[in-house]
């Protein structure tokens, strides 16, 4: 049986009718109606779904034409002016009207422009970051033809691995699809000269390094192929910054000799200004390949780049390298077993994998803010449309073309959107400047492209496009709404227009609910970021980072070749450090906690040979002086710490961390057992100490072995001093303690451990801060939306409220009436927001790099905050409603 009241979904029908041309609308809508009625007999829900699908498909077909028609309105002949380009002239007129109409309500226009600028500004800033950090972080010529080659091994946790010298030489010799293949490796250099000794970031590079990147030294030359041989390798190219800082920018530097790591190097060139690849390098010297290096396949320390041959494609290069790697696997089964090669484009290979999720999170958050902002603007425009409804109805009644009126309203929106662009750029610029300024240079150098983040023409162009797109989005609904062809109704309703506002009010309330819904996940994400950063910085570390001053040193190989020289240096430095007034204890360890670097060794337990010698288990390796446990306040649970007894000729000992003991001796007592680290001697376990968080991302409570520095003196280590008072005050005294022992030995990264932790968690603090700004914006805009809707509702219904009061309603009744509206809006928005937050939980966690998990309590607490803000925003109009004077309202009749 056909039910007569089976009408198609109104919204879908209206949407479609707005898109269709008049002479086809009747036919198409009628056909759909008829088929819908047939289907509704079988099931009304499925029929409604069917109708919506059909309407959407047809709308997508006719929508573009509708927009086109709106923009191409023929001028009516009655008012046709002199001949000429009618579209351009009417457009000019419309823009003039739009400006005038916006200026009639300057505060409203300003509010809209500001709202848009906040949303657009957030987007522009994040877009500038994506552009600088991901799209083009490296300014090298034809950067898309530069490749990065990486070793790959079974179950590696990194996507990029370093390469052994022998493998690199084989790749270079055999791979003709990749030209200028070259390698580089990290090189900490101590530069000694006229001024205080300085530790400089250096890299050893092969001769083709500069040509591979397409970089020409600004002065002098790069390296020659025969400078890769030992004996001729003491050449250096220095960076522009170093050249000016230490050598006064003197062009005569080329050909002069400087002292690096206690060895003389001839300067052959100066790098062009701004070139600091990789990682803020300031000195480059040739890698030396001797006969020994050409056989070295286990020491993997090289990063390999190259340039795609002119006629080769990336796929060809990949295929060829795979063939070469497979041959090497067969030829050198001991070292190359299961080792392949990965070929990345340079920008892809160098990309920090953590960057993509963070920027994706920021970009979506910025987009949310923009959508919330646009929603507010729709609401404001709807309110204004209501005021202009009669005016527009009269124009339509007198024969004005609806499309022309819609176009006019859209142009008004576009003018507002374009007006928002200057403040948008200003906001984006302020935001980027704040980000750049707050990042210490020591960290910025590890983020290629960071310092080149800027608002440029590309960002301006994209922002303009987004602004115009937003203008169409936020302009079309109000424009269609207030030009709905219901002339008679509108004109009849008179000035109050209470019922005409009904549909409009429904849209506006839905929009406010949507705003609240979108704001909550943003607040949740920002809170999660803040919690994660706080936990990293102040959570339990396993050691006490307060009141500890740390600095690092690299002893030059030439001056400290032997173990005894290093032992003596450390002993004397510790004596001087302990004598500093205010210093309580001092110790040296090869790795300072909470810094980026680490040192791991393969592990073997006595009596339990590793099942697969090619893939032994790995533990973190620490070589420390006895006081380290006291300085860092790491508890020794069982056995003993080192003492001075554990000298260089005594029995080799090791203190292991709790996690190491639990993993390898789960049911036995490890004390007295023996283990071996790499190729070293057997070490006897004498103590078990607490675990530490070396790195919150990947080294929490990782198995660690501590050996006495005297038995394993390293060349690179940190000096840590526990102080009675403020540790930073002792900085210069600590520096002097080192200089007293060796005036040519520079120290670097001199700061308190607390500050080091702060730097280490800086990225997370950035995430939290940016998300916090975006979340606050979202909260403010959503509260503004609630206020707007409620204020408008009160204004529209002031007559009705006046009558109610006149008829005996108390102020409390009126308050209840309006507040209950706000409560309903907030409740609906927050409920949907909670659902959305939980739904997006995994995405948020991914964006925060898994440092925090979405917690129902936090979602609930922030839902409460959001509700309270909404209620506060709704309270002001409610107060106004309650204070309406019935006499005034009724007199207005």
């Amino acid at each position, binding site marked *: 049986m056909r039910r007569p009241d089976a009408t*198609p979904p109104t919204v879908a029908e209206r949407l479609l009718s707005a898109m269709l041309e008049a002479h086809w609308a009747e036919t198409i809508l009628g056909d759909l*109606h008829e088929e819908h009625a047939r289907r509704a007999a079988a099931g009304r829900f499925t029929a409604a779904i069917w109708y919506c699908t059909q309407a959407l498909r*047809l709308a997508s077909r*006719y929508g573009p034409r509708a927009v086109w028609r709106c923009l191409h309105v023929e001028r009516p002949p009655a008012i046709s002016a002199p001949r000429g380009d009618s579209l351009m002239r009417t457009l000019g007129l419309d823009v003039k009207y739009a400006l005038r109409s916006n200026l009639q309500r300057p505060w409203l226009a300003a509010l809209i422009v500001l709202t848009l600028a906040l949303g657009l500004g957030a987007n522009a800033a994040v877009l500038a970051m994506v552009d600088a950090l991901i799209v083009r972080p490296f300014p090298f010529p034809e950067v898309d033809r530069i490749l990065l080659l990486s070793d790959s091994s079974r179950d590696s946790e990194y996507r990029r691995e370093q390469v052994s010298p022998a493998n690199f030489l084989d790749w270079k010799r055999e791979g003709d699809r990749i030209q200028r293949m070259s390698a580089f490796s990290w090189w900490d250099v101590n530069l000694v000269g006229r001024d205080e000794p300085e530790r400089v970031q250096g890299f050893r590079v092969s001769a083709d390094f500069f040509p591979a990147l397409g970089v020409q030294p600004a002065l002098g030359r790069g390296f020659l192929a025969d400078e890769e041989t030992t004996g001729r390798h003491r050449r250096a190219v220095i960076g522009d910054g170093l050249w000016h800082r230490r050598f006064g920018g003197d062009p005569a530097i080329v050909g002069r000799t400087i002292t690096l790591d206690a060895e003389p190097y001839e300067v052959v060139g100066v790098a062009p200004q701004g070139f600091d690849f990789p990682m803020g390098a300031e000195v480059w010297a040739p890698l030396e390949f001797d006969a020994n290096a050409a056989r070295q396949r286990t020491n993997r320390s090289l990063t390999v780049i190259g340039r795609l041959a002119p006629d080769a494609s990336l796929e060809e290069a990949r295929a060829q390298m795979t063939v070469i790697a497979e041959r090497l696997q067969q030829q050198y089964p001991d070292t190359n077993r299961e080792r392949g090669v990965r070929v990345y484009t340079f920008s892809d290979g160098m990309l920090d994998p953590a960057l993509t999720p963070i920027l994706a999170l920021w970009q979506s958050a910025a987009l949310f803010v923009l959508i919330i902002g646009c929603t507010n603007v729709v609401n404001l425009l709807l309110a204004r449309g209501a005021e202009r409804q009669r005016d527009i109805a009269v124009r339509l009644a007198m024969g004005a073309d609806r499309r022309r009126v819609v176009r006019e309203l859209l142009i008004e929106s576009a003018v507002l959107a374009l007006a928002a662009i200057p403040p948008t750029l200003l906001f984006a610029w302020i935001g980027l400047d704040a980000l750049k300024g707050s990042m210490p240079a020591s960290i910025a150098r590890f983020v290629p492209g960071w310092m080149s983040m800027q608002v440029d023409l590309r960002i301006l162009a994209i922002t303009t496009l987004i602004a115009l797109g937003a203008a169409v989005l936020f302009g079309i609904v109000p424009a269609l709404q207030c030009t709905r062809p219901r002339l008679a109704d509108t004109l009849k309703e008179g000035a109050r227009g209470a019922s005409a506002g009904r549909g409009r009010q429904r849209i506006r309330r839905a929009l406010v609910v949507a705003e609240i819904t979108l704001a909550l996940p943003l607040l949740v994400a920002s809170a999660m970021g803040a919690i994660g950063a706080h936990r990293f910085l102040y959570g339990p570390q396993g050691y006490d980072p307060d009141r500890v001053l740390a600095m690092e040193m690299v002893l030059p190989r030439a001056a400290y070749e032997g173990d005894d020289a290093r032992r003596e240096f450390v002993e004397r430095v510790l004596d001087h450090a302990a004598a500093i007034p205010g210093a309580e204890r001092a110790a040296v360890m090869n790795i300072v906690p909470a810094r980026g670097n680490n040192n791991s060794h393969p592990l073997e337990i006595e009596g339990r040979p590793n099942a697969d010698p090619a893939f032994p288990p790995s533990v973190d390796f620490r070589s420390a002086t006895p006081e380290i446990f006291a300085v860092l306040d790491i508890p020794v649970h069982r056995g003993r710490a080192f003492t001075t007894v554990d000298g260089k000729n005594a029995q080799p000992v090791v203190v292991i961390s709790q996690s190491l003991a639990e993993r390898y001796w789960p049911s036995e007592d490890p004390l007295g057992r023996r283990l071996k680290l790499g190729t070293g001697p057997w070490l006897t376990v004498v103590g078990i100490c607490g675990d530490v968080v070396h790195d919150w991302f990947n080294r929490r409570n990782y198995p660690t072995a501590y050996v006495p520095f005297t038995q394993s003196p390293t060349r690179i280590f940190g000096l840590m001093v526990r102080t009675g008072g403020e540790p930073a005050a002792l900085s210069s005294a600590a520096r002097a303690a080192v200089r007293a022992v060796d005036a040519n030995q520079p120290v670097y990264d001199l700061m308190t451990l607390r500050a080091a932790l702060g730097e280490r968690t800086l990225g997370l603090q950035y995430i939290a801060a940016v998300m916090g700004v975006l979340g606050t914006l979202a909260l403010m805009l959503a509260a503004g939306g609630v206020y707007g809707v409620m204020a408008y509702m009160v204004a529209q219904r002031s007559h009705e409220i006046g009558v109610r009061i006149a008829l005996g309603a108390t102020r409390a009744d009126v308050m209840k009436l309006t507040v209950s509206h706000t409560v309903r809006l907030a409740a609906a928005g927050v409920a949907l927001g909670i659902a959305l937050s939980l739904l997006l939980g995994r995405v948020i966690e991914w964006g925060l790099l898994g440092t925090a998990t979405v917690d129902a309590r936090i979602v609930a607490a922030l839902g409460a905050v959001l509700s309270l803000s909404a209620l506060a925003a709704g309270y002001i109009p409610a107060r106004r409603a309650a204070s309406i004077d019935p006499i005034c309202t009724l007199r207005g009749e």
Partner: protein
Amino acid sequence: MATLYLGEFEQVVLLAVLRLGDGAYAIPIREEIEARTGRSVARGALYTALERLESKRYLRSRFSEPLAERGGRSRRYFTVTATGLAAVRAARRALLQLWGGLEGMLES
């Protein structure tokens, strides 16, 4: 006969309108095509074809009385004009010319 050129889908629509006679409006036209050719027809594509055929004067349309089941809207009935018929004939002739002599190869 360049002026009477017909696209394949236009031919199909014209033939369907011819087959339906007096009752040809968009819904049965679409059903007719789908039933006879076994292929599904996008609603939008059909309206576009009808509009184009009418503007080429191959089709003519008239509106019915408003109908309750259509929400008070009229049906738009289509009939093929003399020009339209000529175009269909021309298309058929052209195709038959091309078919001629290939029966042995194309019919299984």
